[in-house]
């Protein structure tokens, strides 16, 4: 895989064991489609595509201690760009055009929204994210002549790469590549001076501002990073299901990324990955095992996980259970250690 050679170059050598684990997992993910049925592959693909937006939430939470509910705006944006260009008003389904295009759209929208949203903190930030998401949702829902309203847009063509029609298998590898690439990129960003500065300013905005750090600019950039992640996922999710509906913009969808990030464990870099698989994969399986009771089962389980392990999340539980297996691997990636 191309992603692996890139990780090789990008990661410093002291992370060797982590690197081995990462390459191993990537290889595993790359081999999985040969052993599972198509729906499992689709499910895994969906999990993979959930990882980048969850990383966005994780990024904002671990660096700024804010809860980012607005990821669904960017998922929806990316998805609807695909729905229009590769579906309703068919122009192209070329990934090399659609991915950069929606990335650009998300960056612009995230920057503009960031001007308003990122000025708020805490509870107000969270609610403002939800409010803006819902404004987008109702716009898409109500512009039924263009967006198809609640029925959405269903006739999305399959993606092409350099003009070649991708098989479903091929598309899986594209998803894997982009997902892994974004994870590596997030790793780099989280260990860059930019992140350190963000961490430094999260305590007191006014103080940081008074010593000359462009606080709002930097917070806006963080928002853009999170949004861009989600936008790329949105493009691929639209192709994965060949269907886009206004639920992509719903605030509940954005809230699920927050839940997944928390369940994964916000103390670990691998938290979002674990969260994506636990939240999408396990939730789907549980809801098919207990079709009548799954809400109670999932609700109570998540609540108990949050109560008992808190910020450690499922990753923390897994690490304790598999402590011996991963001994020396030092998966723990503390991005902060303070209390509240």
């Amino acid at each position, binding site marked *: 895989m191309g992603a692996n050679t890139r990780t090789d170059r990008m990661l410093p050598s002291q992370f060797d064991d982590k690197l081995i684990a990462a390459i191993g997992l990537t290889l595993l993910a790359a081999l999985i489609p040969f052993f599972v049925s198509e729906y499992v592959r689709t499910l895994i693909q969906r999990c993979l595509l959930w990882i980048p937006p969850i990383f966005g939430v994780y990024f904002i939470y671990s660096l700024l201690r804010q809860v980012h509910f607005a990821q669904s705006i960017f998922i929806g944006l990316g998805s609807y760009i695909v729905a229009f260009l590769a579906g309703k008003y068919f122009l192209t389904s070329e990934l090399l055009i659609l991915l950069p295009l929606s990335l650009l759209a998300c960056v612009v929208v995230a920057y503009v929204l960031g001007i*308003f949203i990122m000025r708020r903190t805490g*509870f107000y930030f969270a609610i403002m994210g939800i409010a803006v998401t819902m*404004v987008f949702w109702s716009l898409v829902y109500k512009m039924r002549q263009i967006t198809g309203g609640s029925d959405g847009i269903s006739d999305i063509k399959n993606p092409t790469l350099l003009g070649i029609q991708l098989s479903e298998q091929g598309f899986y590898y594209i998803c894997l590549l982009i997902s892994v690439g974004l994870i590596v990129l997030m790793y780099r960003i989280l260990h860059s001076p930019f992140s350190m500065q963000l961490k430094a300013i999260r305590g007191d905005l006014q103080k940081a501002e008074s010593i000359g750090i462009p606080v709002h600019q930097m917070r806006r950039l963080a928002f853009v990073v999170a949004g861009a992640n989600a936008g790329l996922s949105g493009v691929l999710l639209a192709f994965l299901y060949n269907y886009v509906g206004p639920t992509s913009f719903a605030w509940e969808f954005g809230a699920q990324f927050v*839940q997944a990030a928390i369940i994964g464990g916000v103390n670990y870099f691998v938290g979002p990955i674990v969260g994506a698989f636990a939240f999408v994969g396990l939730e789907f399986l549980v809801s098919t095992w207990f079709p*009548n009771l799954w809400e109670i089962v*999932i609700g109570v389980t*998540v609540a108990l996980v949050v109560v008992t392990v808190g*910020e450690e999340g499922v990753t923390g539980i897994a690490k304790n259970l598999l402590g011996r297996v991963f001994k020396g691997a030092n998966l723990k990636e503390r991005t902060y250690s303070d209390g509240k």
Partner: protein
Amino acid sequence: MLSTCLRYVLNSLPVVSYVILLSFSYSFILYICGRVSLTFAGIYLVGAYATVSLGMALMGNNMSFAGFIGILLLACLLGAAMLVASYLCFERFLKTDVHRMVATSSLLVASRGLVKVIWGTTPVTYSAPFLSMGVSEIAGNIVPNYYLFMLAVALLLMLALSYFLNRTCWGMRFRASSLDGERTMAQACGVNQNVVTLMTFAIAGVLAGLAGGLYAPIAGAAYGSEGNALLLAALSVIIGGVGSIGGAVLAAFIVGIARAVAAIKMPVLELAVPFIIASITLMLRPFGLWGKEFRY
């Protein structure tokens, strides 16, 4: 013209009343205990189903006003008991706000599942109290008396709470240990924080249970109504300001009337209008129209 304006106000009354109760339920916990707790929406659901079930079981079609008040009181008690229990058994172990948010919203999912198991997802309704109260005509507008009754209950309760908070000894203790008070100092002054917290949750439970109970005869008790209640309450808290009784009432009227006007004049915006108002409020007055600045 005046009659048209009045019509919008009257049309908004049911929403206004239940949003007053719900949003203050939410902001009261947030303000006094500094905790984000979304369980109140589940209590709203419980209040609605309890009222409908008790109403159908105990009274059927022989509606009596006193009986209905009794059922509402039961719904309040149930709400208070459940919210306090949720705090004691669960919420007090949660450390940070985002975890409280995620954990309590998971509880909401569980409560919805429970409702599904017990009542199914076919909506149930007990409308006798609503229908039996009749209508009055105010300046050429027809308004069901039940709406006025709801508003009166909500406003009276808010007045009572306001009196309690501002004029009584215990109210003073609540304010002392609120977000803009100093909790440790309140305790050092002899305020028992545990009792205050439990009472806060109990009062919030009463408000949320009552909101569900009062609204159920109008709209029925429906699986999934907690999500909408949650959003409207949270938005109203943003608009009105955390911990402010006047703000809760003001925000509820703004949200309700704006929706009633949008429904007729600009249907495209009906659902979005509370969100737009909240966004604008946040941009211009981050602590709400009636709120005090507090660091959160």
